[in-house]
């Protein structure tokens, strides 16, 4: 177990392996690691940005939703107002129409009644004349007594 030339050869072998490691082993491993590190950093950064824009989109979405709701409420309110107005108008119109119909109906009725009354008067006067002539057995000259008959008829 003396110290001998083994020491020198081991030092040389050591140098050779360190050189091999320095030249061929270390650089590719390190560059792969660094590349991955960079990629991960970029990925994390992108994720953060995506998060931020998501937050922003959420805010915009909420704001727009609120606006839309307000508008919808407005529209509904307007529609309600309009419908009640239309309803009111229709009611007023219908009432007027009904009144008109009723009026014309009563006018017609009156006319009818007048006509009937006139007819009745006519018939009555002739009945009266007949009856009177029968009573006095004498023909009443219709022309002569026209005035009297008329008066009588009017008195009925």
């Amino acid at each position, binding site marked *: 177990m003396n110290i*001998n030339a083994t020491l020198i050869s081991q030092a040389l072998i050591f140098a050779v392996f360190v050189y091999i490691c320095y030249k061929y082993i*270390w650089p590719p491993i390190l560059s792969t690691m660094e590349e991955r590190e960079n990629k991960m950093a970029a990925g994390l950064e992108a994720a953060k940005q995506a998060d931020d824009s998501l937050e922003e989109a959420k805010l915009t979405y909420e704001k727009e939703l609120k606006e839309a709701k307000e508008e919808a409420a407005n529209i509904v309110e307007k529609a309600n107002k309009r419908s009640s107005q239309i309803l009111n108008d229709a009611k007023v119109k219908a009432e007027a129409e009904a009144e008109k119909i009723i009026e014309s109906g009563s006018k017609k009725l009156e006319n009818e009644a007048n006509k009937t009354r006139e007819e009745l008067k006519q018939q009555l006067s002739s009945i009266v004349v007949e009856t009177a002539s029968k009573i006095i057995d004498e023909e009443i000259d219709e022309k002569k007594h026209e005035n009297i008959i008329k008066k009588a008829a009017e008195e009925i």
Partner: protein
Amino acid sequence: MAKELTSKSYIDHHLTNLTCGKTESVGWTCDHNYYDEMGFMAFHVDSITISILLGVAFVALFKLIKLNPADQKPTRMQNFVEMCVEFVNENIKSIFGSTDNKLIGPLALTVLIWVFFMNLMDLIPVDFLPELTKQVSYASGIVDDPNDAYFKFVPTTDPNITLGMALGVFILTIFYSIKIKGLGGFVAELTLHPFGKFAIPFNFALEIMQLLAKPLSLGLRLFGNLYAGEMIFILIALLMFFQSAVFGVLGLGLHLLWALFHILVVSLQAFIFMVLTILYLSMAHETGDH
């Protein structure tokens, strides 16, 4: 002629490296009987082979996995590999603050994984690989006595290996010290602290000791921890000399306990070696006054 197996020969066998070296009498040889004659020109073939294999395993593991591009789900192995890189980077960041030194990352990763793999060899049961070597080399006629075939399979229990890596770190420390502070700055750091310019020899003695202590402690700490761990495994294995079922079961239990505990040592020592490597390099980058 086989030697008698005693506890001493058993331990000795486990602590001996397969060594090839140059001798005066027979030239290049791998025969352990000439070990003392080899002197400095000797190579621990087992430590070197295993450490190279584990280094190749490290490179293969980290290079052959499929790296999915950044916009795809990473594969499982990719997650593991990236976890290691991330871990190393975090340690560098906590020690260095920030640095544009491109070498420190790969250096620390190599140290961490390679040392961890080498330490992990300690968890292979102590007799597996040495016995296998014995049988194979005896059967193939490389040695006449199977006990002459040595194989020490945990590289980090060999001080040459740990100090060799520490030497590499030391050279880098010196290199960056001079590169960052300039040669003058480096020399000034060695000679003008802590007592100013009137005590230059004393300062130099202190600072050079401090400087040399770093790689020495770095290498010896790893070696010491792993060597001690290996030693305990060998000692537990010695229970087999009692040839009794009770001790066999006891030995098994102790092996398990020590192995579980050793997982901690294995990973902790790899981690410490890496942290100290980063620390020493960061000290080399410091330009301020102490």
